[in-house]
């Protein structure tokens, strides 16, 4: 019989994560982590935003980059979906358009890791999506 994931597994994961969190001495307050927001309105979802978000969550974890990936609404750039907003610690947010898994990989490798800019940035002049 195959094993079914249960809440007991979650307890194990919890202790595991707690150990890791203590190792990093709680230096990772949300402000010190990369914040990524994936535009997840009808337009984004229809263009594949869910796949991009799945990819980002998995890859950032695999590449050991501490980041918070969340969802947000539509910014009005429906033509450029899927769009994501990336905020490196202490920097202004940058919005990337036409993001697929390949583009997301480049964003992680170039912008998130090294701060190098790349094609596909949507010029914006607001502080963040909610502030628009």
């Amino acid at each position: 019989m195959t094993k079914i994931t249960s809440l007991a597994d979650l307890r194990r994961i919890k202790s595991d994560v707690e150990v890791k969190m203590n190792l990093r001495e709680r230096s990772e307050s949300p402000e010190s982590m990369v914040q990524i927001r994936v535009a997840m309105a009808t337009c984004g979802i229809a263009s594949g935003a869910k796949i991009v978000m799945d990819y980002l969550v998995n890859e950032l974890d695999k590449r050991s980059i501490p980041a918070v990936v969340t969802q947000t609404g539509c910014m009005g750039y429906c033509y450029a979906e899927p769009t994501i907003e990336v905020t490196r610690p202490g920097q202004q947010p940058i919005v990337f358009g036409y993001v697929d898994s390949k583009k997301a990989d480049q964003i992680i490798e170039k912008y998130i890791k090294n701060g190098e800019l790349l094609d596909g940035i949507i010029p914006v002049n607001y502080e963040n999506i909610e502030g628009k």
Partner: protein
Amino acid sequence: MKDLALHILDILQNSVTAGAKLVQLGIEEIPSADKYIVTITDDGKGMSEEMVQQVTDPFFTTRTTRKVGLGLPLLKQNAERTGGSLIIDSKPGEGTKVTAVFSYSHIDRLPTGDIPGILALTASSYAEIDFIYKHHTPEGIFSFDTTEIKETLEGVPINNPQVITFMKDFIRDNLAEIKAS
């Protein structure tokens, strides 16, 4: 939308935007009555009767960033395509309930899609909101409740990647157990 899960992901966002604290998703598979019913219930700010009339109009939206709102119209279209319907009950200040009824056996009923994925991603994005998911099939009932998850986590953030993976596996395994379609 390519599958039902993406529609649900979309409608869950409406509940979040409406300021809900608790969002409940229900899926009932009743092959004997040829029904596949999806309900999304929230305790958000609700809508006036007039607004309920308007929301399935593609040219109605509460957003200011664009002029169209396609989430509910597309779901309505997909439900009606199978001979089903979309029903919206809402009261200002109390919340909203969206019910999409599909014909179970209809060839145009959308594939279910990645329900575990969309729930894990939504629950982790909105840690302050609780999500309850109940899935009924003739084989049994599965329920998933983020309050339970958060209690077990005792302060470990729900948006931790390992926790997200756990939620996906947990939902997927249990859905398979009740033979969800």
